[in-house]
Every structure is written in C-alpha cells, then in structure tokens.
C-alpha cells in the first residue's frame, strides 16, 4: 500500500479529471457572427449595418449590455442592440474608417454581459472609407477592461470551432505528455544500461518505450477523431502531426531492430544505443520543428514557449495539470506491469538455459 501510493494518486486524479471534465458546462459564448440578411462578412465604412450573433449555453437571466467591434487600432460601439425571437442578437453598427487604414481589417466582436466579456475573434472586416478615424488612445480604457477579462462564471471557455470538444484537452493532450515522459525515462534507463551492463535497466527501458508508443498511437487516433469532428479532416496540415508521424516511425524501427537480434545482451546494447540516437531527433521533430514552422493548430507552436493566456484559462488549468499528472501515472503503472512481466519471463528463460 505504501509503495503503491502513486497508483492510487493517478487513479484519483483521473477520476476527478474524467468526471469533472465531462460534467462541467461550457461558459456562455459567441458561436457565430454574420451580417444580417447577407452572406458576406465585410462591412462598408460609413454604412449602417446590422450584425447577427449566436450564443451558446445562455441561461434565463442572460443579457447583453454592450456590443463592440475592436482590433488593435479601432473600436466601434453598437448603438442599438435587440434580441430576435430565435435567440440570436442583432446589433447595429455605423463603422467609420479613416484613410489611415489601407485595406480591409479583421475585427473581433465583443459582447459584455454584466461584468464579463465574451469575444469572437476575426468575426468581420470593414472596408476603408473616407469618414473620420477613431484615435487609438480613445479606447485604451476599454481595451484594458477587455484584456483583464474577469473570470466570473464557472465553466470551460467556449472557443470558436472547438466548442464542447475543448474538453479533449484533458484527454488527447496528456497522451503526448505521457509519451514524452515515458520516452525520456526510457532514454535515462538506456544510459544506465550502457554504463552498468545490467540487463534489468534494459528491460525497464524497453517496457517504457513500448508503452510510450502505445500512448503515441492513442494520441494519434484521438487527435484524428478530434480533427475530423472540428476541422472536418482526418489529417490537417500541421507540422506537429507530420513530425510526430516520422518520430513514431523511428520508434517502430526500434521495435523491428530489437526483434531482429537474438542474443539478449547484444539486443539490449544495440537497442540502447539506437534509443539514445533517436530520442533527441524525436524531441526535435515534435517540439522544435513545429515551432520553427509557424502556423499550427496546436498551442505552443510558432513563437510561444509556454501556454498563452488565451490557450488555457483558469478553469481549464484546474483540470489540465491534474490530467497530465494522472495520465502520466497511469501509463507509468501500465509500463511497470509490462516490466514486471518481462523480468519474470527473463528469469525463467535464464533458468531454463542453465
């Protein structure tokens, strides 16, 4: 019992993450923005335009007291807000763009409900006109109010495209964290084996790699399903996916290499050397290359090293970190089962040889 505390910890964390992750509702959010009576997303400067917005998960006492369109330089207030019978909101804008603005620019739509701001990024664009420019300084106060974004309501954030599937952050992402953790541990044991020649270290290293590959395969399949339902394709164009595919192939080659050698010690030595050779390449492929490549569906690519505030809000954080720890502990547990089996098997085969 005392030695097994980490298994219990893993089980409890996972129970918390799975139950909480499925039960907690999404916060009220904007799911769609469009021009009323038109399929276009472009507004004309100086023309009064009606904009329709869809909301998700709003309750009985939900009200919107301010709607604005904003980007880094400009801000427009809706001068009229009304609710439609079907639950959508109509806001009327009179955008005025100055000559300072050369082309059409994308705007984020913000709605204020009580003290809380909801945002729908890249909602609409406004084509340049000849009317007055609103100076940047005028909206500084508003900007800080929005960026502070007080987290008053409980629930997961509602992001465009992701919506309910944002919960997958707790199940799909930790697969990769676990895989990287197990493979690093395997590399550590490979070093230990090469230094001591103790076959026990090799058994540990090999078991960890096998379970790491299992986590990787599960991460791949779950990622594909997620992409199919949200982006409508099994394999989006993303440097992270292709890097992982190559990395997985390298570890499959490790399995083949080991299967091809009969002598136990030679198998262990070649396996450990290959493992140490492959591990840095794998890390480069899944962490460094996507960062250099830029655009990616995954957070942490192209610029940011850690999670941006936009990627992970405080509610999600309370579940995400336990999820990562819980899944890592579960996979380590599974790997330890495989290791214990392999050890007994090895002992028996040694006895038989004598």
């Amino acid at each position, binding site marked *: 019992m005392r030695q097994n505390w980490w298994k219990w910890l893993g089980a409890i964390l996972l129970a918390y993450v799975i139950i909480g992750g499925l039960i907690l509702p999404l916060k009220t959010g904007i799911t769609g923005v469009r021009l009323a009576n038109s399929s276009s997303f472009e507004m004309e400067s100086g023309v009064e335009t009606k904009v329709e917005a869809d909301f*998700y998960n709003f309750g009985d006492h939900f009200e919107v007291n301010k709607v604005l369109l904003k980007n880094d330089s400009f801000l427009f207030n809706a001068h009229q807000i009304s609710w439609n019978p079907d639950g959508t909101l109509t806001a009327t804008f009179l955008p005025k763009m100055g000559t300072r603005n050369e082309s059409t620019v994308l705007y984020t739509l913000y709605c204020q409900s009580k003290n809380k701001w909801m945002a729908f990024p890249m909602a609409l664009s406004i084509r340049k006109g000849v009317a007055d420019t609103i100076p940047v300084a005028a909206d500084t106060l508003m900007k800080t109010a929005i960026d502070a974004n007080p987290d008053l309501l409980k629930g997961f954030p509602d992001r465009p495209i992701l919506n309910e599937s944002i919960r997958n952050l707790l199940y799909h992402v930790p697969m990769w964290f676990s895989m990287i953790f197990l493979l690093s541990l395997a590399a550590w044991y490979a070093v230990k084996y090469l230094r001591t020649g103790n076959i026990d270290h090799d058994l540990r290293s090999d078991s960890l790699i096998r379970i790491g590959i299992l986590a990787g395969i599960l991460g791949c399949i779950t990622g594909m*399903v997620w992409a199919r339902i949200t982006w409508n394709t099994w394999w989006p164009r993303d440097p992270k996916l292709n890097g992982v595919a190559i990395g997985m192939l390298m570890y499959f080659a490790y399995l083949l290499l080991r299967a091809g050698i009969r002598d136990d010690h030679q198998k262990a030595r070649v396996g450990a050397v290959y493992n140490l050779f492959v591990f840095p390449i794998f890390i480069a492929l899944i962490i460094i290359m996507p960062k250099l490549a830029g655009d990616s569906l995954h957070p942490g690519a192209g610029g940011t090293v850690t999670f941006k505030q936009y990627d992970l809000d405080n509610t999600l954080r309370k579940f995400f970190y336990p999820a990562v720890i819980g899944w890592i502990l579960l996979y380590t547990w599974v790997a330890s089962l495989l290791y214990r089996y392999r050890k007994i098997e090895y002992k028996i085969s040694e006895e038989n040889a004598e």
Partner: protein
Amino acid sequence: MKRIFLTLIIALSLACDLSAASAAELIRGNAKFNAVVIVLGIIFIGIILFLVRLDKKVSRLEKKEDMKS
C-alpha cells in the same frame, strides 16, 4: 486481434460521420461533445486491449511453469 482493430476502425469512422452529420448542430457547437466521448472511448479501449494482451502472456507463462513442476 486484427479483427478487433478492423471493427474498431469501422465503428470509429461511422461514429465520426454520424456525429458530424448535422451541419446546423455543428455550427451551434452541441454536436462536438461526441468528439470527447469518442476520444475517451478510444483511450479506454486502447489500454484495455493492451491489458488483455498482457493477461494472455502471463497466462502462457503460468502454464509453462505448471508444466515444468
């Protein structure tokens, strides 16, 4: 083993197509909860499949030991 994987893959693609069927629901965001359920199911099945395989291996080892003694 192969048959299990094949049925799994077919069931999976069916489930995804079904859940992606209604475009209106997809825009509103309700249908995407299915993605979470499918993902959790896949992880569960994956780990269980591994445990079943390990179980079989252990049984084989036990049988071998019994034969020896």
